[in-house]
């Protein structure tokens, strides 16, 4: 083994170790920020009494136990569902659908929003169309979507896309439009091109609005996920919820509702972490 290869190996292992340490550190920051907000003293003073009430009322017979399953029954049903119904596969199906629809919406809505906010000509031609289409509730698109795409994955992805698209579009547009003219003037004084203005001034100024739009899009996208999984396919958390509803399995319904809530919360925490890292000037707001 030559000296050079030994040096190279040790340098690459030091790089690997550095990346690993960075990953562990950032994961710690993320977990502290996300779970820290849930397990804070203030929230626990609200959460614990609610959980106790939820557990006690069905056990005491004040509400029917079978219609309002207590948290202990929900946990036990969740365990059974993981074993009997292969929850991992359903989660993976839902994640695929949601991820595809979400990414499609992000890569289309963000550039369109930037262009509309940046350029008056584009805004005057495109914005009225989106303002007319946006108030149409996404579930109303279901029949047309079935005609266009048939029943299946493309239709499901399109429905989720519709739910996520408009919040990102309008929030991006608004954030870009409201860029402080003083920043633009300062940048132009230093010879910034329009492209530099967009990438170094407009987008960074609008970052907070964009992330807010993404958070709203996540919530609407999850709603559309449940609606999309009603049509075609026999997998996904939304499908499990609807099957449980159709076959009067209320405990399973509650498990699916809690899981959807948890997924939504987790995705929003991821966006908060991204905002923490990218929009440092907004810390403390």
């Amino acid at each position: 083994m030559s000296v050079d290869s030994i040096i190279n190996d040790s340098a690459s292992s030091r790089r690997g170790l550095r990346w690993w340490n960075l990953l562990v550190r950032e994961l710690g920051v993320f977990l502290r920020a996300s779970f820290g907000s849930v397990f804070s003293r203030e929230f626990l003073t609200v959460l614990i009494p609610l959980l106790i009430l939820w557990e006690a009322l069905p056990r005491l017979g004040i509400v029917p136990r079978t219609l309002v399953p207590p948290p202990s029954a929900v946990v036990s049903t969740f365990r059974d569902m993981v074993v009997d119904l292969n929850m991992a596969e359903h989660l993976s199906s839902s994640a695929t659908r949601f991820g595809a629809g979400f990414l499609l919406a992000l890569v289309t809505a963000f550039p369109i929003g930037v262009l509309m906010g940046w350029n008056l000509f584009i805004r005057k031609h495109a914005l009225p169309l989106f303002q007319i289409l946006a108030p149409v509730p996404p579930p109303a698109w279901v029949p047309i979507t079935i005609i266009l795409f048939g029943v299946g994955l493309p239709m499901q992805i399109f429905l989720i896309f519709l739910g996520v698209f408009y919040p990102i579009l309008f929030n991006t547009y608004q954030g870009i439009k409201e860029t402080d003219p003083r920043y633009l003037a300062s940048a132009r004084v230093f010879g910034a091109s329009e492209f530099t203005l967009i990438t170094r001034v407009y987008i960074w100024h609008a970052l907070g609005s964009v992330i807010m739009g993404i958070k709203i899009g996540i919530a609407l996208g999850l709603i559309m996920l449940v609606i999309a999984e009603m049509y075609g396919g026999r997998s996904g958390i939304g499908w499990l919820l609807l099957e449980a509803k159709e076959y009067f399995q209320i405990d399973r319904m509650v498990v699916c509702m809690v899981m959807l809530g948890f997924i939504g919360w987790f995705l929003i925490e991821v966006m908060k972490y991204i905002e923490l890292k990218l929009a440092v000037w907004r810390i403390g707001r």
Partner: protein
Amino acid sequence: MKNRFWKITGLLLIVILSGTGCSDRDPSRNVSSQAANVRVGYSPNPLLGPLYAAEARGKAWQLIKFGTGGDIGYSLISGDIDAGFVETEKALKLIKAPGGEKLKVAGAIQFPYGATLVVRKDLKVRLSDLAGKKIAALEADCILNHQFNKDAKRHGLDPKSLKFSYMPFADMLPALESKSIDGALVKGAHAVLAELQGHKIIYQNWDIKAGADDCCPPSIAQTEYFLLVREQAIEKVKPLITALVAATELPPSEIRKVISTRLGYPQAALEQYPTASFAVVSEDQRKLLGEARCLLTR
């Protein structure tokens, strides 16, 4: 001045709103709403021909449309409706679900069993061309499969060349629509629904009767809907049950006519199929469900 303007506007609004609340109502509406106090839930389906025929003969009950059998079940439990037609599998779960102990099975909508192979509307194939295709079936060891395998060999198709995917009947049409399967081996009732959705029938055998195997107990296999009734509404619903039995005696052409009028399907498309019938709870169903869960009207 501004204050007076708002006061006058507010007063006008109150007068207008009060006027709409006190408008003359058609007195006959009150009478008919009292008479039609039997609320019956259903989800539109051509298999509910006896129900449409009974309604068309002018009986005083109110049909409430729902999207799914699950919604009908929850409305029964909450007391919003007095009776409802719920799909067989869901009804069996409902009577065991919380709140379902107050419901009784009053009868069933039945349809001849049969065996039908339906293929996707976009496929142009015959029975002998199906080798390698993905076909949905209820179970491997089911009378439908056995009969189909026998008949398929006679028509030049090796059943072993098919890729079977096993799922409940209710999932087969959505799977056809989403193109995750190429065909489905369904019972008679689902053949009607499949063809009305545009899919093609390439094999049919009405001689098969349910009951020759464990997967399809006859009292359940040929039942498409159970009529569930709330305990408190049993007396009110008895005339409906009588009307449903009478509607079943009507000529099939009349039942097809009301289905066509009600749901918009062309009558010609319904001609090739038998019609569904309503029957009160049978001895077999009583044994299966338990006497306490059945409304016996005989």
